Structures are given as C-alpha cells and as structure tokens.
C-alpha cells in the first residue's frame, strides 16, 4: 500500500510518501502506527503521541481500529487546522 504523510508527520518522517509492506499481523490503523513508530527515529517522533494522529484510507477519515487490508492509500496527519 501507499502511505502519504502531511504537515509535521511528513516533516518528522522526512518523506511525503512511500510504499509500505507491513507483515500480515498488522491489521488495523493503530497497529500500523505502532509498526511504523518502530522503524526509526523520525517515525518514532512522528508517532510519539498516537492521540494526535489522524488517519484516512483511500481519502476518507477512519478510526484507529479500522482494518487496513483493503487500503490502497493510507494517510497520516495531525488534527486539521483549515478554514
């Protein structure tokens, strides 16, 4: 699946997007966050406070317990500040 990152999540990870191939036991958004956080210093900083992270699958907001199996694109970003 493709992962895309925005705002300070993007800056801390140092990438705007990448392809991910998590192991099969990573089934939900929350588990994917934990898996990503263990990938290195930038990821750990980006995901240090999971409560401050919002996620979208295929451009729709999802909850942390959403399954990721059918996702083509998963996005991680901070709470929105538009308007």
């Amino acid at each position: 699946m493709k992962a895309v990152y925005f705002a300070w999540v993007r800056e801390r990870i140092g990438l705007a997007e990448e392809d991910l191939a998590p192991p099969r036991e990573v089934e939900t958004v929350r588990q994917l966050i934990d898996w990503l956080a263990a990938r290195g210093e930038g990821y750990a900083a980006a995901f240090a406070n999971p409560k401050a992270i919002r996620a979208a699958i295929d451009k729709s907001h999802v909850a942390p317990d959403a399954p990721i199996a059918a996702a083509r694109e998963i996005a991680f970003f901070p709470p929105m500040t538009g308007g």
Partner: protein
Amino acid sequence: MEPTIRVQAEDFDAGCEEALLTQGRRDVGALVTFTGLCRDEEGTLAALELEHYPGMAEEEIGRVAQEALARWPLVGLTIIHRYGVIRPGERIVLVSAAARHRGEAFAAAEFLMDYLKTRAPFWKKERRVDRADAGWVAAKAVDDEAAARWEKL
C-alpha cells in the same frame, strides 16, 4: 442541487461567486456568504503556509456539503478553500449558501465552516515576522466543540 467546490491556490472574488449563485434565479430569498481571511495576529504574523491533501480535500468538502444539503433545503452552494502561501489581509476560504429563507442560509453557512475546520484536510503553518522558523498551528478544542454542537441538534 450540485454544490460548486473548488480547492485552489488562486484568490477568489466573493462578489463574483455570489453573482454566479443568483444570476437568472427568482427563488433565492437569502444568500449568506462567509469569507475567512488571514489576520496578522497583532503584527506578528508574516504569512500562513496552507498544506492540503489533494483529492481528499475536494472529496471531504463534498461530503460535508452533502450533510448540509441533507439538513437544510439550500438552492445554491459554493465552497472555495485556498492552499499555498497566504499573507495577512488575503482570503483563505469562502462559503456561500443560497436558500429561500435566511434561517436556513445562516445555519448552513455556520455548520459548513464548523465542519470544514475540523474535517477538511488542511494544515496551517505560521511564518512569524521575528523568526526564521515557521511553526504548525495547533488544532483548537473550541473548534471541535463548535463542530460537536451540531450533532445534538
């Protein structure tokens, strides 16, 4: 009724958008247009950098627009949200709601702004006058509360 939704770097003209919503019509009794501008925070803000999620921004604004249309019988609706570098005094967002009666137009415009702030994928970064580094604007609890109060109605 198909709302007009645009996500763009360019500025917009609220008067032109209002004219487009009402031209040739005789059924519009109320038109409420909200324009959000970049303020200078007492002279400390040099500019905002607005980042967005291309594709999702348009889709999510569309979903919020459909929720508004399900609640109020609007006869016209235009929503524009800009991205990129925006300086104090410049426009950021426009919501223009046309209805038969003012109550529906006022309520829909306020609902749309409350929901856009918490759901549309945009993020503001502040360039300060006195600092080289820019910082991300934190989401405000008051915005979440403003959106949540519509769920009780």
